[in-house]
């Protein structure tokens, strides 16, 4: 039996099989939300490298509250140092971009209505590991950026390394671990679905 329902100005077909309603509204919601999130993820994917480059190129003209680097002396940085700093910023940016690529791939599958397939578990696993890897790249970046920004600071200190680790730095590690766990749950769901499809 087929039931026609109106959902968000769209006509929705709801199958009623052996008295059980096959709920498709939730799937429509997933598709809709994943489409929107995919746009945000795309904007971040293409926007983040550009914004980072703009940040370091226009570093001298930024308001003081945007200069979060304690190691930066109160003097303008040259364009060469700005570019070096951008190159250093690519280190933590790489896992972020890799994570965003995988997030977009996962959202793409959701958008197409395929939720429990091996590829979605793989995408989530990669996203989780990218987030977990972020803590290492952040440490590397802290070291690099302090070295780059203090190379011509004119002070008697010369080069110095600054390394700040805050509790919040461990949040991506925790979040990544949770996402990896969810990917394993999805992997189990894929196995269950395969078994379900082969149960006649």
């Amino acid at each position: 039996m087929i039931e026609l329902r109106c959902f968000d100005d769209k006509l929705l077909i709801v199958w009623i099989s052996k008295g059980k309603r096959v709920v498709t509204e939730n799937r429509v919601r997933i598709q809709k939300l994943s489409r929107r999130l995919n746009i945000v993820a795309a904007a971040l994917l293409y926007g983040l490298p550009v914004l980072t480059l703009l940040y370091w190129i226009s570093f001298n003209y930024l308001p003081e509250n945007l200069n979060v680097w304690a190691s930066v002396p109160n003097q303008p940085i040259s364009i060469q140092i700005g570019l070096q700093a951008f190159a250093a910023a690519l280190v933590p940016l790489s896992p972020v971009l890799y994570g965003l690529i995988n997030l977009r791939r996962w959202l793409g599958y959701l958008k197409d209505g395929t939720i429990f397939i091996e590829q979605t578990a793989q995408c989530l696993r990669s996203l989780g590991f990218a987030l977990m890897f972020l803590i290492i790249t952040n440490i590397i970046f802290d070291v690099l950026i302090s070295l780059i920004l203090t190379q011509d600071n004119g002070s008697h200190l010369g080069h110095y390394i600054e390394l700040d680790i805050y509790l919040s730095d461990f949040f991506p590690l925790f979040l990544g671990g949770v996402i990896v766990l969810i990917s394993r749950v999805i992997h189990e769901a894929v196995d269950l679905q395969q078994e379900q499809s082969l149960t006649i």
Partner: protein
Amino acid sequence: MTIIINLDIMLAKRKMQSKELASRIGVTVQNLSILKRGKARAVRLETLNAICKVLECQPGDILEFQDEAQD
């Protein structure tokens, strides 16, 4: 797999086509084909009941156990 599905034999005995059986027991032809080829992981008692009812046979006429070790 050591459980053999003799659905083909029963269909031939009853001179019935897979398509007709599929429609009468309420499964798709593709799913019935999976069952016939022995690719199914599990068979619902509900499905087995429907097959036995339509083909007028016993579950033992459709399912057969063969010990692989003895073969």
